[in-house]
């Protein structure tokens, strides 16, 4: 059986950042307490001319540069997000046209809170494995929303990760599983600007239960144990959740280090675990294993195991690394943040 996995990957993070101090100053809160509690120091903010579509295109161009394939060979473009610019009119149509994939292409927008991008990856994997398409493009991107003054404001960020799935991969997809229940920890109703959440309820019965269950199911399916992986990436609503979940599962902080992008990027929702995976791939050596478990409120978790191949050495430098985008930043004040995010209603 031909090996299937990641042929090319790419990340994109907007350049603007707002610090926890800057937000805490406005709301009269203690920045040190928040930083210690969340393990987040600043978050990315999209420019006024950036949205899920532009972020998806930029990340996908990086993935294409690494894959080195003719975009016309891409048979599916699936964009996962909870901030698609249109409610009706698929983001994927613009993304596919901008990438010049050709018109014989399956396109759909995915939504499953923060794990829509990994759901897209599973669909691409299935289609490639079934022989229906040669390559599939899965993207997770968001410009996440948060109500001014809400705890989410410290972390709700913008970024995206894109993955081309196909044969001759730089990382073989060894297996994937999902764990899904009806658990209402975070939601946004039709027509509402901002989401609502269950505060502490988003923890134990939601994030931790699903992330640990999906990861354990994957390890059981593949007969692997945490020590078989060099890198592990868990969805990053903040720094504390993935660190705690990893520890509970038996992963060390060293295994989480490469993919833990949240302290200086924030939670990019559908982009979160995928941007973490791009950072882990940037650091990985051939033969190493990477575990990725996403989480989407509502709720579910997708877990994957990848084994990195020699091809990563020839493809990795064909696009900017994730660290490049993390370092390429411009800090803004709260007023500019409000302007860029268009939070003032006229």
């Amino acid at each position, binding site marked *: 059986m031909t090996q299937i996995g990641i042929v090319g990957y790419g990340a994109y993070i907007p350049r603007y950042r707002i610090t926890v101090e800057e937000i805490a100053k406005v709301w009269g809160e203690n920045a040190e307490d928040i930083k210690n509690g969340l393990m987040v120091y600043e978050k990315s903010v999209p420019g006024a001319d950036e949205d899920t579509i532009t972020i998806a295109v*930029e990340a996908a161009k990086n993935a294409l540069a690494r894959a080195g394939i003719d975009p016309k060979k891409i048979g599916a473009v699936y964009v996962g997000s909870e901030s698609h610019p249109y409610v009706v009119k698929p983001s994927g149509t613009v993304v596919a046209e901008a990438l010049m994939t050709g018109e014989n292409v399956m396109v759909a927008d995915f939504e499953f809170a923060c794990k829509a991008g990994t759901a897209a990856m599973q669909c691409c994997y299935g289609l490639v494995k079934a022989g229906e398409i040669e390559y599939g493009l899965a993207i997770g991107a968001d410009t996440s929303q948060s109500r001014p003054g809400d705890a989410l404001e410290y972390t709700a960020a913008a970024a995206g990760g894109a993955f081309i799935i196909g044969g001759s991969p730089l990382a073989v997809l060894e297996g994937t599983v999902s764990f899904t229940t009806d658990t209402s920890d975070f939601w946004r109703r039709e027509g509402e600007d901002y989401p609502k959440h269950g505060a502490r309820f988003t923890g134990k019965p939601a994030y931790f239960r699903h992330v640990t269950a999906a990861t354990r199911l994957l390890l059981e399916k593949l007969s692997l144990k945490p020590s078989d992986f060099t890198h592990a990436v868990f969805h990053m609503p903040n720094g504390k959740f993935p660190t705690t979940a990893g520890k509970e599962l038996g992963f060390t902080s060293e295994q989480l280090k490469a993919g833990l992008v949240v302290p200086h990027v924030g939670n990019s929702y559908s982009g979160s675990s995928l941007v973490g995976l791009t950072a882990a791939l940037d650091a990985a050596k051939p033969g190493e294993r990477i575990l990725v478990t996403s989480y989407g409120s509502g709720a579910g978790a997708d877990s994957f195991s990848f084994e990195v191949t020699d091809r990563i050495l020839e493809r990795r430098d064909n696009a900017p690394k994730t660290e490049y985008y993390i370092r390429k930043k411009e800090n803004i004040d709260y007023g500019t943040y409000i302007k860029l995010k268009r939070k003032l209603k006229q």
Partner: protein
Amino acid sequence: MTHTSSVPLYWRLKKSKYNVIGTRCRTCNTAYFPGRQLCQNCRRKGEIEELKFSGLGKILSYTIIRTAPQGFEQYTPYAVAVIELDEGTMISGQIVGNPAGLKIDQRVKPVFRKISEDGSDGLIHYGMKWELVDGQ
């Protein structure tokens, strides 16, 4: 009142705007953006073909917009530049980011961005803008 544009016009131009696609005369190698169907040098002897520009180029001139036209108010201050593309010919476009410190001859690369929006319920227009190449 919100400015609205022609949906068919956006549809017709999307290919050239999403990727800076113009034409080139194979006879004299002159590049055109927007694409031309007839070479102004070779006339009937010219052979026109589609050309996907790299988008890379340098700033020939620029101006900083502080009082923006309708639909662009949220971007002020921003720079609009005339860019000389590496393949030849010129294109006008917005330079993203803070315009302070921009200089003529600086190298630029293309980025995919929102260009404008027809209000909150209309079409979103996407296309290329430019940003400075790192290290200048």
